[in-house]
C-alpha cells in the first residue's frame, strides 16, 4: 500500500486541507485566542455564513467567494452585536463567564441550527462556481481547484490579519487588550470598544470562511457540531491568538489527517489528530506558538 508518491500526494492535499482548516479557525483564534470568549457558537456562525452564501449563489448567481465578501460587512455588524450581548450579560457582571459563557454560546448555536432548518430544510446544500469540480494537473498529481482556492484565501487571510494586528493602531490595541486590559484603560483607551471591534472582525472573517466551507464540501444545518472540536483543536494547538501559528497548526492537523486517511487505517484519522492535540497540551500547554503565561 505504501508508496512515496502517495505520501507526497497526501502531504500536498493535507497542506491544502490544513489551509482550509486555518481559514475556518482564524476567527476563533481572535475571539477565543485573543479575547478569551469561549465561542462555541463559532462553527454555527460559520455554517450560517455558508447558508447565506448558498442563498446568494442559488438565487442571484453570485460567485460564492464574492458572496462571502458581500456578507462580511453584515457579519461584522452581527459580531458587534453578539459581543455587546455577551459583554452585557457576562463580562460586565464581573468574574467567571467561563461555564455560563459556554452554555450561552451553545444555546445560540442551537437557535441558529433550528433557524437554518426552518428556512432551508434539512437537506445538504452546495454552490456552483467555475472552480468547483475541476482539478489542476501537475504531472501525475491532480489538485482540486477548490482546495487551491482555500489555500489562497487562507494564506491571504492569515497575512492580512497578521499585518492588521501588528501594523495598525487598532490591531495593536487588540493585541494589547488581550495582554493587559488594565494597562490599556490607563492609557485612555476603552477596552470594551476594542474587544467589540475585534469580535466584529473575528465574525466578519467568517463570511469568507463560510464561503470556503460550502465551496470545499456541501453543508447541512448541523454541520457545526463536527467543527467545534476541529476549530478549537487548531486554535489551542497553535497557541492562543497567534495567526501564523493557527495556519501552521491547521496544516499539521490537515497533513496528519490526510496521511492517516490515505496510507494507514482511515478510520483512525480523527483519533490521530486529537491525540496530537492532547499530546501538545500535555507537553506544551501554551500551544506550539503560544505566548508565555
Amino acid at each position, binding site marked *: 500500500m505504501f508508496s512515496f508518491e502517495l505520501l507526497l*500526494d497526501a502531504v500536498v492535499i493535507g497542506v491544502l486541507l490544513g489551509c482550509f482548516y486555518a481559514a475556518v479557525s482564524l476567527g476563533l483564534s481572535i475571539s477565543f485566542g485573543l479575547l478569551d470568549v469561549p465561542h462555541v457558537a463559532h462553527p454555527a456562525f460559520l455554517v450560517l455564513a455558508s447558508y447565506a452564501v448558498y442563498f446568494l449563489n442559488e438565487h442571484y448567481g453570485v460567485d460564492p467567494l464574492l458572496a462571502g465578501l458581500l456578507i462580511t460587512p453584515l457579519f461584522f455588524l452581527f459580531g458587534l452585536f453578539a459581543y455587546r450581548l455577551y459583554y452585557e450579560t457576562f463580562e460586565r457582571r464581573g468574574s467567571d463567564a467561563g461555564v455560563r459563557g459556554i452554555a450561552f454560546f451553545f444555546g445560540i448555536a442551537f437557535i441558529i441550527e433550528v433557524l437554518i432548518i426552518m428556512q432551508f430544510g434539512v437537506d445538504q446544500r452546495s454552490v456552483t462556481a467555475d472552480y468547483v469540480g475541476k482539478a489542476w494537473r501537475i504531472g501525475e498529481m491532480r489538485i482540486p481547484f477548490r482546495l487551491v482556492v482555500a489555500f489562497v484565501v487562507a494564506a491571504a487571510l492569515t497575512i492580512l490579519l497578521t499585518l492588521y494586528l501588528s501594523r495598525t493602531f487598532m490591531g495593536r490595541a487588540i493585541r494589547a487588550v488581550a495582554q493587559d486590559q488594565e494597562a490599556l484603560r490607563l492609557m485612555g483607551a476603552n477596552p470594551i470598544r476594542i474587544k467589540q471591534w475585534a469580535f466584529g472582525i473575528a465574525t466578519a472573517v467568517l463570511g469568507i470562511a463560510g464561503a470556503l466551507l460550502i465551496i470545499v464540501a456541501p453543508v447541512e444545518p448541523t454541520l457545526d457540531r463536527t467543527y467545534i472540536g476541529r476549530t478549537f483543536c487548531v486554535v489551542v494547538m497553535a497557541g492562543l491568538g497567534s495567526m501564523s501559528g493557527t495556519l501552521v497548526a491547521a496544516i499539521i492537523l490537515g497533513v496528519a489527517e490526510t496521511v492517516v*486517511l490515505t496510507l494507514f487505517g482511515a*478510520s483512525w484519522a480523527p483519533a490521530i489528530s486529537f491525540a496530537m492535540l492532547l499530546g501538545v497540551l500535555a507537553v506544551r500547554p501554551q500551544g506550539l506558538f503560544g505566548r508565555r503565561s
Partner: protein
Amino acid sequence: MKRRTLLGGTIAVAVLGLTTAAIGQQAPIKIGMSMAQTGGLAGGGKASLLGIEVWRDDVNARGGLLGRKVELVVYDDKSSASETPAIYSKLLDVDKVDILFAPYATVPTAPLMPLVKQRGMLLMGNFSFQVNSKVGHDMWFNNAPWGPADSWASSFLDLGQKAGGKTIALLAADQEFAQNLAKTAREVATKLGMQVVFDQAYPPSTVEFSGILRALKAAKPDIVYVASYPPDSAGILRAVNEIGIGDNVKLFGGGMVGLQFGTVMENLGSLLNGVVNYNTWLPEPQMYNDGTKAFFEAYTKRAVEAKVDPLGYYLAPYGYANGQMIEQAIKAVGSLDQKALAKYLREKTHKTIVGSITFAADGEWKETGVVQAQFRGIKDKNIEQFRSPGKQVILFPAKMKSGDLITPFEAARK
C-alpha cells in the same frame, strides 16, 4: 413562512381528522411511529412520513378502514437509538395505538425490536437493515427492498464480474449501515473469487476525499464499491471528478446513500454520470404500478410546501406501500388482531405502488427489489430532469432492465 412550516408540522398530527370528519362516529384506528424529524436521518424521515401521510389521506378519502378513519401518531426520535424505547412505550401504553410502524433506518429501530416482540405487536419496518436477525420476531415485516442480506452486494458485483472485473476496492463510511454493506460485499467478493485490493472505512467527519481516493486509485481496482452517506457521497464524487479514478475501473458506486435524494442529485448534476448505484424506485416505465403515478403527483405537490425531498423516490413510496399493505391486511382480516394480520402479511403477496411484495420467514423481502442503475446524460442544476426516464438506466434486476452498462467508468462519465 417559518411559522407555516412549524404549524404544519405540529398541527398535521393533531387536526388531521378535519377533512375526514364525516367518517363514522367510532374512534379512529391509530397508527403509531417515531420518525426522525431532527438529526442526521431527518431528511429521509421527513420524506418517509410524507409518503405515509399521503396514504392516510387517501385511505380516509376512501372511507377509512373498518368504517373507522385512520390517524397517525408520530413523534420525533432525533435520529437516535436512545429515544425510541420510551416513545414506543408511550405509543403502546398511553396512546394505545392499534398498529405500529417502525422509524426510518436501523439505529432507531434496533432498540425497540425486543419491546415490540415482548408485547406481541406487529411491526412494519422502514428501511432498517437486518435488525431482526438476532431478535427473531415473527411479526416483523421490513418494507425495504433489500431482500436476502447478500443480494445487494451480489447484484452490484455480478454486474462488475460480467463486465470483466476481477479486483474490487471497498470504500465504506465507518457507520452502521455502510459497514453492514461492506461486510456483505466482502463475503460476496470471496464467493465470486474476486480479490479485494483496497478495503478502508473512512470516519464520518471526513471533509476531503482526494487523499483516500488517490490511495484507492493506486490499488488499481476493476470495481469500486462505495458505501457512503449523503454528505460523503457528494464529497467522494467531487473528488473522483477532480482527480480521476483510473481507466481500469469498470464499475463505480453500489451503495452510496444520498444519490437518491433530489437536492443531492441536483447539486451533483453531471458529476453523477456513469455512476452505478442502488435505488429503490426510479421513474423508468417498468417501475410504475397501479397508483404509483397518482402517488407521486400528490407527493410532489406537498413536498415543496413541507420542504422535504421534492423527488421522494427513495423512501416516500415505501411509506405509502406500508400503508397499503396494512390496509389490505385489515380489510382481509376484518379486525385489528395482530396475529391474524401478521399471518396474512406473511402468507400473501401484496400489490403496492412499489410492486408485488412477498415476505420471507425472517420478515425481509423474499426477493430483492433493489435496482442498480447507471446515471446517464445528467446536466447541472436541474432537478426536473430526474423525473424523466432514461436518466438512470436500470441494469439489475434483469426483469426491470432498461439498458446496458457502459464501461469503463471514465468513458461512461463523458
